[in-house]
């Protein structure tokens, strides 16, 4: 028994050595996801990006990932493990990974780190993010055009700048069409609880909203819209299969092109730390086909999308804060720093921002 065990272990050791040796000339790229890749939302989209990179770069790279990594104490170990297992570039896809990544990046100066949605950078730690608010502005315009009651429901997870930015952009878009547009907000305090999201959607519809949008990950809210014959928007992934008659468009994350670009940079030896915030024009934010709407609304949405792709920022003055004070003067554009730390609503949002 003992001999057998030893024999097994030696073979295993030999096997694993063989694997490493063979892999040595490939670039090993690694990802850390906060959720399961089966969430069909945020982590799923990042993993689609990884698969896209694998397809594009073929045998020049090999990839590995850790999913379901808690933002608590496990994160440090996840990054340390990948760093020690020969990953040359590591992507951390959740905000909560920021400080663990800073720590591990300091320890492994030869390895490149890329952190999504954070703000701390260093020599070997870059930051990337997507301007999801651009898509939400377009969605707000569509909502205002399509709504009969003039009220939309918005299901949200947690009050972080990313989410507040989305609410504000949606509202600004809606107000550009209908200045009296109303927005009802429900915080579900979870990124992921399909049942609760469905309940929230029903509550919002019952209180007069006839269009739903959400900053949570599941398709549940959209399915409720489908059942009730009302309209809604998808989030993260194209959810048209779940709501063929209800989805107007979906604000999708498309990380693939960015991952390919960064991996190529590592392969060429041109990788440098950066802090990028990609939008519609870079293809990182994509609006899935405009459906279930009349042609004039579609035309308006296309036009706005093009305007944004050409460089126009939805946060362009005049914009007023919720309390009525002016935030952006006429023609003034919000700077990225303010947006990344946004913690107030624009005028007209009918909710108190949880503080």
């Amino acid at each position, binding site marked *: 028994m003992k001999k057998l065990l030893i024999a097994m272990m030696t073979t295993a050791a030999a096997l694993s050595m063989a694997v490493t040796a063979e892999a040595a000339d490939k670039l090993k790229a690694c990802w850390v996801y906060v959720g399961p890749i089966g969430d069909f939302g945020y982590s799923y989209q990042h993993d689609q990006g990884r698969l896209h990179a694998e397809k594009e770069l073929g045998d020049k790279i090999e990839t590995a990932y850790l999913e379901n990594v808690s933002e608590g104490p496990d994160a440090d170990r996840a990054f340390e493990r990948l760093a020690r*297992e020969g990953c040359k570039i590591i992507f951390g896809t959740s*905000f909560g990974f920021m400080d663990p990544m800073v720590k591990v990046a300091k320890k492994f100066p030869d390895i490149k780190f890329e952190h999504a949605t954070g703000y701390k950078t260093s020599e070997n730690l870059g930051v990337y993010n997507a301007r999801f608010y651009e898509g939400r502005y377009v969605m707000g315009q569509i909502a205002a055009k399509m709504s009969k009651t003039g009220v939309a429901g918005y299901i949200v997870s947690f009050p972080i700048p990313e989410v507040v930015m989305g609410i504000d952009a949606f509202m600004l878009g809606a107000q550009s069409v209908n200045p009296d547009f109303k927005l009802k907000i429900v915080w579900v305090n979870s990124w992921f609880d399909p049942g609760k999201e469905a309940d929230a959607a029903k509550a919002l519809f019952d209180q007069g909203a006839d269009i739903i949008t959400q900053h949570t990950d599941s398709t549940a809210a959209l399915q409720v819209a489908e059942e009730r014959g009302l309209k809604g928007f998808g989030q993260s992934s194209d959810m048209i299969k779940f709501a063929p008659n209800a989805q107007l468009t979906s604000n999708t994350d498309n990380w693939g092109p960015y991952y390919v670009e960064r991996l190529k940079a590592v392969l060429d030896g041109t990788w440098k730390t950066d802090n990028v915030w990609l939008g519609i024009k870079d293809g990182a934010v994509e609006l899935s086909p405009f459906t279930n709407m009349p042609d004039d609304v579609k035309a308006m949405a296309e036009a706005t999308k093009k305007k944004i792709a050409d460089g126009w920022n939805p946060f362009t003055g005049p914009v007023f804060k919720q309390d009525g004070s002016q935030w952006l003067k006429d023609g003034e554009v919000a700077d990225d720093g303010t947006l990344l730390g946004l913690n107030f609503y624009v005028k007209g949002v009918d909710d108190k921002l949880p503080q």
Partner: protein
Amino acid sequence: MRLELVKRPQRSALFSALSPFIAFALTLIAGAILFALLGIDPVSAFYTYFISPISEVWQLHELAIKAAPLILIAVGLSVCYRANIWNIGAEGQFTLGAIVGSMVPVLYPELEGPIVLPLMLLMGMIGGGLYAAIPAYLKARFNTNEILTSLMLVYVSQLFLDWLVRGPWRDPQGHGFPQTVQFNDSAILPELMPASGRANWGFVFALVAAVVVWIMMSRMLKGFEVRVLGSSPRAGRFAGFGLNRMIFFAFILSGALAGLAGISVVSGEINQLKPVISPGYGFAAIIVAFLGRLNPLGIVAAGLVLALTYLGGEAAQTALGVSDKVARVFQGMLLFFVLGCDTLIHYRIRLVGLRAKAPAPDPATAGKLGEAH
């Protein structure tokens, strides 16, 4: 055919020692089938799972880090469970310990010096202990079922932490993100051997707690009291032990240890408060407590084993592309085999053929016969 258990006259020392190995062997067999079905080479899978995490020094450190809170919490829980008191809200006590302990570095960030850390640890224990005193009070005073109250309080504590780090305790320089300020250096639990890895004093706390509780349970009157009240409250009352006092004692002790685990994790590893500070330590510790057979020294071993399966699961994900789900299934299998094999300590298992089944014994004599075995 059916299984039949025959109680041994006394616990079997042989199987007490052997059962973990039988369980391990069974896990290997079942695991080999699972991996083979999934098209993964079982040999390299086992190597990755069990050997690779302990083959490098840095991973040994990680093992200690992961095991420390599990052991700390489980040691406290073992006292509860021995006393037949069902605290399953350790996750909440962990959270409250972290919150109360963090009051020092969050509210007084300028406070420095050697007093800070002991104060934080003490406050963490008080926080966890007091939070555990709530279900204890409700049970002692109103006879409210503690399983449920302690569990409900877990959710409440997590939402409370969430509110704190998004609201009043949010770092003003943190770009609006939900986190407190970074703790200053004197509020950070030092690492044991910084040269070789990250393991910190939390692991030492865990070992000390295990030894102290072990001494208490096996050598002191208090331990006797816990066991008597646990196995028979009536006998305990005759002996003059107060059940209500015991409820408070067990809850507060386990709460304080969970709180200590909470503040140790926050101070030693995260260095700030965030909405998520635990990957479910409080629940995993319940399993650790039983895997360790409610014996503090057994719990140390069990905590290390469970931590090993977490590390092994991660290694398998990156090295072999085995999904996180498979890792969890494998972990579940291991737990089932360990629990099942422990049956052998107290019972002999007999397979009884249906035909061989004796006529139903006269219930009056059955009991006596059982005792005579």
